[in-house]
């Protein structure tokens, strides 16, 4: 990790750690949710930005992690660690199976297959009322007592997400991450130099699904519940927009995208109930004028300044 990046990360982490000092419940919840969605978007970017495939069903693994956590903590009264481990294991297993099938395809068929699997997960969450609560949602998750309060939970999720992002960073910047980029840029040539492209894409999918599951399990705890909307396809589209808004060709871009989108949504809701309309318009503008997202815009501005000197 280059020194400025490391310094910036430490600064962001510190600033986030200071949020509870503001003593605003609203802000603590807001930042907690932003962090969760930032992890969700970063995980999706392993598939999109690094392996070059578009997943249109990433919400499935978020939901699997969330529902597993909610059900194990509440219905089966497991303690935190085993439940968390199981949530990670479940989203790992689910994405491992789905990835096995999806990596057989590319392009539009890959996207459609991920969508189909996510709709299957949604269907199960919707219909398995006795387990998931169906369309009423799973309400009233028993969060362990030591993190039941708002501030302890915030620090818990800050530590978990910080660790998860660090691990993701290491994965993406390892030899594995470099090889993934090679697969994205030119799968045929990557195959010629001896990279097993399908296996690489499988791993990218599994890493992404597992970390989405971690984000989902935190989501279930912060909301004290889990709802079928989290598995429905527009949720997958929303996290895609976050990734795109931030910029999928940079590691931290999606996190910036998640934060921007969240803040924008809160801001818009102050003035109008038509947030989707605003979001759609923003999305159109990005697609037409900013295809590399905010991170791409920042880079372009930096290049302009350097050239001007």
């Amino acid at each position, binding site marked *: 990790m280059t020194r400025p990046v490391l310094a910036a990360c430490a600064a962001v982490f510190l600033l986030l750690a200071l949020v509870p000092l503001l003593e605003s419940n609203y802000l603590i919840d807001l930042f907690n949710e932003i962090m969760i969605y930032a992890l969700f978007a970063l995980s999706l970017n392993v598939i999109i930005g690094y392996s070059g495939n*578009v997943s249109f069903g990433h919400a499935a693994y978020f939901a699997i992690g969330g529902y597993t956590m909610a059900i194990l903590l509440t219905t089966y009264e497991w303690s935190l660690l085993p439940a968390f481990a199981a949530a990670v294991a479940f989203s790992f297993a689910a994405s491992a199976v789905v990835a096995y099938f999806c990596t057989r395809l*590319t392009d*539009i068929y890959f*996207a*459609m297959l991920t969508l189909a699997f996510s709709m299957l997960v949604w*269907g*199960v969450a919707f219909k398995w009322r006795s387990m998931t609560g169906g369309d009423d949602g799973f309400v009233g998750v028993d969060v362990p007592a030591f993190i039941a309060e708002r501030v302890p939970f915030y620090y818990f999720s800050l530590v978990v997400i910080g660790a998860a992002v660090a691990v993701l960073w290491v994965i993406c910047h390892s030899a594995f991450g470099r090889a993934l980029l090679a697969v994205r840029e030119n799968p045929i040539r990557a195959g010629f130099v001896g990279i097993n492209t399908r296996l690489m894409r499988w791993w990218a999918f599994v890493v992404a699904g597992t970390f989405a599951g971690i984000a989902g399990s935190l989501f279930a705890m912060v909301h004290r519940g889990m709802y079928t909307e989290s598995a429905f396809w527009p949720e997958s589209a929303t996290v895609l927009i976050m990734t795109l808004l931030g910029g999928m060709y940079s590691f931290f871009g999606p996190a910036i995208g998640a934060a921007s989108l969240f803040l924008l949504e809160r801001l818009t809701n102050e003035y109008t109930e*038509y947030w989707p*309309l605003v979001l759609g318009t923003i*999305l159109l503008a990005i697609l037409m004028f900013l295809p590399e997202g905010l991170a791409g815009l920042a880079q372009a501005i930096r290049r302009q300044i350097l050239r001007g000197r």
Partner: protein
Amino acid sequence: MDSIIQFVQQDLGNPGLAALLSNPSFAFIQLMNSFSQAMNLFIIAAGLSLIFGVLRVINFAHGAFYMFGAYIVYSVAQEWTGNFWLGVAAAGLGLAVMAVIIERGLFQYIYDKEHLMQLLLTFAVVLILSDVAKIIWGTDQYSVSYPAGMKGAVDLGVTFYPTYRLFLIVVGPAIAIGLWLFTERTRFGRLTRAATQDREMLSALGVNVPIIYTGVFILGSVLAGIGGGLAAPFNSPTPGMDATIIVDCFVIVIVGGLGSIWGSFIGAIIYGLVFNYGSVIVPNWQDVFPFLILLAVLLVRPWGLFGKPEGGNA
């Protein structure tokens, strides 16, 4: 036969399947329900498939077009004129206008972009249109009455069956044949098929390709509008109907093969049969079965039953 029914009823504990086996008219009604649902879905899915076949864009906004069709029928037929058919005509016309604006204003810029860009652009249109619909029609659930003369039921010998649903069963194949004649027998249809094969060559031969694209997009969107209009009497226009229908349409066009009209036709019938018999045999889980079929097809023949494999799908 009786022993089989008894076995199903008592040992399998499946009253739905037993009823299907023991009561022919019940089984027949399920068959007719499958066909009428299938034909309505076919009209919408055929539009989606047609657009993909030529423009190579998977249009998520197709579901929103369907919803607009249903709302327009409500406004024109229910509130304004009282004539259902005028409402359906207005739905088709309204969607044609929307299609021109959306294709010329947005879609024409993304034909050579990546799939991700295309998917997200159509999703942006979904977001905008669903809110526009909320602004115009609010969040109420509206009911649209059946057209005059189609409110009752017809005696089919075996059983009585609702006239309007029977009408849908007739209209579906008629539209399928019409679309087939259009693509196979008319000059415009030939040009659309040529555009699917080689856009640049067609353009080099002096054909105005952008007009063909616009034309196909209008045709596909009008089908969504008419499909939504025809669905309005039994599927009350309400927010959120766009998100549900688009997934059904994806299942149908991918099972049948993207870009193939007869593929969508067969895909819709498979969907209808699985959904309706599934809801009797395994109640409550009927929504999940279509996705299982979709998965099976994507894994064995990703290009669908009637589609052709594309290059580059390793």
